[in-house]
């Protein structure tokens, strides 16, 4: 065995240290942050006891942006600089934004993503979201008394790759390490499942401010298996407000509202909608910028008629997911309502009717998503307990490539469990063709133009053959994080090319770096110090995990192998003490490589252990 180790002060490994992790619900109308404390998930509040942070950012000419209530309160006075519901713009180009005309902002068309002109310069939705995340990060670090190791951020299940990437970029910009993006309905199910110790098949109906999500999950002994998910990225509580707003314009004879009037009336519309959850009619009173007074009464039945088609749309999505999962409403053990908009009485009535049962509403629909995210964050940060849950998630949208004639060929259909690897063979179109362009797509439609383009790459060096003779195997691989990589390989020669797909809407690393520079003005020295700190943290974690593995499975190694791994560990330890970032990384790679066989043997052991203890007849039969 190697010599006993004595650690440098400040470098001692603390194997059972609790890592600070949080779950963040980055919502259209409001956002929350939660963490697991002494085994209990809880939402963190600000100094005034508010759990919800309004997702509102107000840019000022001479000071840092305001976030939350202080921004929200200024939205009718300073509408163009006060950004609300920015989530609807994430990962979207101007042409994608249907409601552009109804938004009081100066939207700019820009390559990749729409931008907003404000008094402190043009802002991308990613930057606006990063301000919200920074506010939540501060709240969490103040409350928890230390730097966050990592966070789980929730996104609508129906977010596509560009929207997910934009969310990750915002987190990076806010200085947060993202352990995983998880889907909002899944997070809600985690919170419910643990709270109720539920078993069976559940539906989660999640209507937020700007998005609708529907997921079907099977819960069994700590395993959460997503069976199917569907939804609508452009449908939420805001749309109900818009309907009421349109009704106000019509009935108060307002032809040309100013940006400020728009805000005032939208706020009044929302208030009326909320009142109608409790009473049968709601007064709508407001004074416009030109002094005109609006005084109307909205009846419950009128509201019902105005919004009936929106509810119908959600139910069509529910039907689709049930069909994908080959389930009928009778097969469900419960229906969970999530999202503030599910407080609407009309909605509860329609949902009850569709599913033939009363939905579950015992957890606060505003908090449940953040609570679930914090539970998953705690696990992924490595704070593991004995009764850990496991989340088996699916791809929300189909992934495929473009074939001749502008058609989409699906390689991984929607609702496939992750991680997944799937290959399909293609061939050449022309005699003597030596290159092939591979266009990666996401979406359900037949035509390429209707799907979202995730990227293009080329396979070159195909030997010249007659058309249709070459065999090109295209492999799609999606890991547990939902990241896609694509490989193309010519079978006879083995010529190969591959890419990790970055959506065309995502920001490049350079752009992120530039934004980081702008927002922090980080000195070079600070950056190096941070990189070193990160490398040391990573190295420490690696050492802990190898040590733990050797403690439990030492019998899988012979003496020589043990000595060798110990030597790699000692080198890495020395590098940490010496404090060179590159050196630490080099020795981490060496240790990783040196333990590859060991890791493989441990994996095989644990798989075969999973099958032992099975009844003999079923294995031998």
């Amino acid at each position, binding site marked *: 065995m190697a010599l006993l180790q004595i650690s440098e002060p400040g470098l001692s490994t603390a194997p059972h240290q609790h890592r600070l992790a949080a779950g963040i619900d980055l919502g259209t109308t409001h956002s929350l942050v939660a963490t697991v404390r002494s085994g209990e998930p809880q939402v963190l509040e600000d100094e005034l006891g508010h759990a919800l942070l309004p997702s509102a950012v107000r840019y000022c000419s001479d000071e840092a942006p305001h976030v939350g209530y202080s921004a929200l309160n200024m939205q009718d006075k300073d509408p163009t600089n006060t950004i609300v519901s920015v989530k609807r713009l994430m990962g979207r180009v101007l042409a994608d934004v249907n409601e552009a005309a109804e938004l009081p902002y100066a939207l700019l068309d820009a390559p990749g993503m729409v931008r907003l002109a404000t008094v402190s310069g043009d802002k991308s939705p990613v930057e606006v979201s990063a301000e919200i995340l920074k506010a939540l990060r501060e709240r969490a670090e103040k409350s928890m008394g230390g730097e966050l190791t990592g966070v789980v951020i929730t996104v609508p299940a129906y977010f596509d790759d560009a929207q997910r990437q934009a969310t990750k970029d915002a987190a990076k910009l806010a200085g947060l390490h993202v*352990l995983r993006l998880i889907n909002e309905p899944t997070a809600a199910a985690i919170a419910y499942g643990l709270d109720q110790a539920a078993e069976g098949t559940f539906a989660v109906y999640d209507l937020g401010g700007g998005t609708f999500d529907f997921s079907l999950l099977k819960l*069994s*002994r*700590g*395993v959460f*298996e997503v069976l199917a998910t569907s939804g609508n990225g452009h449908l939420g509580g805001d749309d109900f407000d818009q309907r009421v707003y349109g009704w106000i314009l019509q009935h108060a004879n307002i032809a040309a509202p100013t940006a400020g009037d728009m805000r005032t009336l939208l706020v009044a519309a929302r208030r009326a909608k909320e009142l109608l959850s409790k009473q049968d009619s709601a007064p709508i009173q407001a004074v416009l910028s030109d002094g005109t007074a609006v005084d109307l009464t909205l009846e419950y039945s009128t509201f019902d008629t105005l919004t009936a088609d929106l509810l119908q749309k959600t139910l*069509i999505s529910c039907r689709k997911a049930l*069909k994908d999962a080959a389930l009928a409403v009778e097969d469900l053990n419960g229906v969970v309502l999530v999202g503030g908009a599910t407080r609407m009485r009309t909605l509860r009535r329609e949902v009850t009717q569709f599913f033939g049962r009363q939905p579950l509403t015992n957890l606060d629909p505003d908090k449940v998503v953040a609570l679930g995210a914090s539970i998953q964050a705690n*696990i*992924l*940060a*490595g704070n*593991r307990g004995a009764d850990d849950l*496991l*989340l*088996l998630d699916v791809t929300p949208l189909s992934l495929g490539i473009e074939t001749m004639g502008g058609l989409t060929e699906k390689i991984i259909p929607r609702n*496939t*469990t*992750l*991680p*997944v*690897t*799937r290959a399909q063979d293609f061939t050449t179109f022309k005699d003597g063709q030596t290159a092939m362009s591979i266009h990666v797509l996401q979406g359900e439609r037949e035509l390429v133009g209707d799907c979202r383009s995730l990227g293009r790459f080329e396979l070159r060096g195909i030997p010249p053959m007659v058309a249709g003779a070459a065999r090109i195997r295209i492999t799609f*691989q999606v*890991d*547990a994080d939902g990241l896609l990589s694509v490989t193309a390989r010519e079978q006879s020669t083995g010529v190969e090319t591959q890419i990790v797909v970055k959506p065309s809407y995502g920001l490049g690393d350079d752009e992120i770096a530039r934004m980081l520079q702008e927002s922090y003005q980080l000195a070079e020295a600070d950056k190096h110090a941070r990189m070193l700190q990160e490398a040391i943290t990573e190295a420490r*974690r*690696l050492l802990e*995990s*190898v040590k733990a*593995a050797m403690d439990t499975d030492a019998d899988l190694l012979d003496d020589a192998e043990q000595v060798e791994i110990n030597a790699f560990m000692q080198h890495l330890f020395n590098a940490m003490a010496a404090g060179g970032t590159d050196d630490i990384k080099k020795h981490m790679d060496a*240790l*990783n*490589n040196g*333990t*590859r066989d060991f*890791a*493989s043997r*441990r*994996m*095989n052991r*644990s*798989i*075969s*252990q*999973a*099958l032992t203890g*099975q009844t003999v007849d*079923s*294995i031998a*039969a």
Partner: protein
Amino acid sequence: MIDFSATHLQLFGLPQQYGIDLNVLESRYRELQTKAHPDRFAGEDETQIRLAEQWSGRINEAYRVLKSPFERGCYLLTLQGIEPFGQNQPAMPPDFLMQQMQWHEQLAEARSKADKLMQLEQSVERHKKSLLTDLSGTVDSSAEQAALILRKLKFLFRLEEQVGEALEALE
């Protein structure tokens, strides 16, 4: 010790046959994923996580194939060296071709009528069920017959999709 060359059924410790207990399959799937899923190795070294990705993906794929009667049938025939959808398949029997034509006519006539479409959907569903029953009796004993049933089923799946699309267009 289990390795990547094991069949899907061996991976789950199930007998090498079409008739399997789906409850056992499901509970073993969960047990295996509980061991192999990359999230189980959160915070551990990359090698371990990459290995877990491979295992977990392999288990997902095997589970997907085995839990579907159609996919399981295709898979078992392929193991016997028979490609149900390969080239040079014998022609479909004339009575099935006739039935195919009838269905297509019905679909064309029902295109804008939701009730007719739903009737057709139910008729397709009934045929599917009866073919799946036939399939369970043939995969292990008469591979050629099973291959024919699988080809018929594939036709029904496509038809079902077309009916579904027509229904969605009406919504």
